[in-house]
């Protein structure tokens, strides 16, 4: 998890060795910019390029494209996914939209009515459940000169697709109803309060009002339990020779033969269920409106639980991959591969300590040939209430298309130590070595004072 520094920041960036690596550019910078530049060199929780960070990215496709979309569409139903992907279809042909960013989890776009929170929270092997796909595009304008009198602008679009999942998630999640005192009872109490709870007499009165009399009469007359004996029948016919009066007497006699239970059983299927549902919903909505104070109490407990449940403990094994291609004039049939990457991280989080092991391969195409880098990194964090420290190192092996004479191995090393001077004010000291040609990459040192509202930059993810 990323810890952001807020509040007043007083920083002093000392570039001991400067940016000596190839491609380093001298710029005029303010103190703040220097601080920011120094931070970018830090490996721990800094704003270095996503591709360089020692972690598996959340959205591999966007990392590979090198974009940070301000708005990522996250459809959560099959229909919403279909609508999002429909932008790839234009007039019955496939096209590549620009500025497209979508991310979705196939497992979760369908309802999971049987998945209970405790089964989910227990973690374990979760390849399918935690799988997410990311898909993004970025418009790239390039000047096309071949065969042209005047160079023209060719609208290319880069598209990347990626996935990310947890092969194993042993970091059990908090179940708030177990964790927060009073929440379970509060929820059960709320469910009770908002139950309509009609008594038997109220139910009978309500349902009887929703039965058509002629349907009930017909059901009573058809019921075998209400059948009259030949003697009872003869008695009625003798007493009521006329049709309407005889029918009424017959119905009364048959109704009288039924027990209350048998009569109730005859009535039940005759109730207008739609009308009953409307009436019960009306009563329930009133109960929910009356229970708003109870609802607010429960909401508050959930909020407190969310704040207290950010840290997770245990093993986590993440994998991710992404590939990117370029589409000329946004046409699907005019494409070429640009790059692909894969990540795998294994981490263990304990109370105040985190260790992370990363393996990463990145391959990209430049000037018609493929380049390939293999990274292996290790990071350790110790965080306590008043101090924190982080050590991180990444080794990079240039395994494909290395220049003649180029050393195949580079590394980055960063150490960050922090101390809380007063509540919310942290002093941090960082130093290390960035990637660079051979073993003489850019050295950096940074001292920071985060005054007032600061949070530690080194924190257990």
């Amino acid at each position, binding site marked *: 998890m990323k810890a952001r520094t807020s509040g007043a920041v007083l920083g002093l960036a000392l570039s001991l060795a400067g940016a000596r690596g190839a491609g380093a550019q001298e710029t005029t910078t303010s103190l703040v910019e220097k601080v920011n530049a120094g931070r970018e060199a830090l490996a721990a929780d800094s704003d270095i390029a996503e591709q360089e960070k020692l972690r598996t990215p959340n959205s591999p496709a966007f990392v590979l494209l090198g974009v940070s979309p301000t708005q990522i569409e996250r459809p959560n139903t099959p229909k919403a996914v279909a609508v999002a992907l429909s932008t790839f279809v234009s007039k019955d042909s496939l096209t590549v939209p620009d500025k497209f960013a979508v991310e979705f989890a196939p497992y979760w776009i369908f309802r999971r*009515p049987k*998945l209970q929170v405790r089964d989910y929270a227990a973690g374990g092997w979760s390849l399918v459940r935690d799988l997410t796909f990311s898909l993004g595009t970025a418009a790239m304008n390039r000047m096309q000169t071949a065969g042209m009198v005047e160079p023209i602008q060719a609208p290319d679009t880069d598209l990347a697709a990626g996935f990310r999942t947890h092969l194993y998630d042993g970091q059990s999640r908090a179940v708030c109803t177990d964790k927060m005192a009073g929440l379970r009872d509060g*929820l059960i109490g709320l469910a009770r309060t*908002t139950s309509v709870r009609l008594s038997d007499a109220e139910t009978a009165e309500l349902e009887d009002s929703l039965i058509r009399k002629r349907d009930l009469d017909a059901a009573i007359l058809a019921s075998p339990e209400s059948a009259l004996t030949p003697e009872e029948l003869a008695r009625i016919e003798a007493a009521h020779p006329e049709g309407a009066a005889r029918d009424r007497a017959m119905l009364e006699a048959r109704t009288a033969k039924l027990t209350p239970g048998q009569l109730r059983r005859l009535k039940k299927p005759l109730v207008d269920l739609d009308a009953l549902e409307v009436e019960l919903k009306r009563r329930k909505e009133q109960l929910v409106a009356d229970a708003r104070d109870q609802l607010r109490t429960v909401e508050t407990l959930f909020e407190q639980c969310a704040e207290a449940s950010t840290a997770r403990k245990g093993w986590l094994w993440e994998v991710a991959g992404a590939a990117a291609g370029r589409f000329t004039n946004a046409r699907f049939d005019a494409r070429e591969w640009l790059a692909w990457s894969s990540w795998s991280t294994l981490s263990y989080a304990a109370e105040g300590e985190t260790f992370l092991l990363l393996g990463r391969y990145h391959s990209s195409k430049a000037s018609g040939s493929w380049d390939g880098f293999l990274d292996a990194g290790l990071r350790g964090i110790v965080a306590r209430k008043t101090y924190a420290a982080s050590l991180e190192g990444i080794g990079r092996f240039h395994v494909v298309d290395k220049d003649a004479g180029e050393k195949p191995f580079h590394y980055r090393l960063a150490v960050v130590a922090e101390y809380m001077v007063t509540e919310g004010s942290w002093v941090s000291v960082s130093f290390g070595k960035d990637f660079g040609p051979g073993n003489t990459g850019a050295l950096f040192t940074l001292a920071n004072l985060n005054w007032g509202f600061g949070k530690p930059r080194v924190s257990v993810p």
Partner: protein
Amino acid sequence: LPKTITETKVVNYRVDDVASVVARAIIGDAQEGAWTMHLGSRFLAGGTNADDVTVGPGRALAEGSGNLEVSAIVKDVRPETDHLTLTVTLTGGMDTQHVQITNLGNPGDSASYSIFVRFV
């Protein structure tokens, strides 16, 4: 702002006169919440985990006026989904029956559901 979705459903369940009806409530989609069951105005059980609750013998239920009311409060706590689902499974009657209320909320929303089961 989080809202509370309210929904009710009424169903008939065909009993077996000589068997007991058992009901089970499940709050799905890995969301948090709690359920209660009432037979008429009488409280039977409540909880957060799925649990079997014996409602009563089929004949007595069919001949009585009281309906089974399964109520639930479901809270959208999952970033992965906004589905809010209550499923009630009824067994011990002529068939096993699954009754479900589901809605697609927004992050942080709650749902207050009641499923009324009429024994016929």
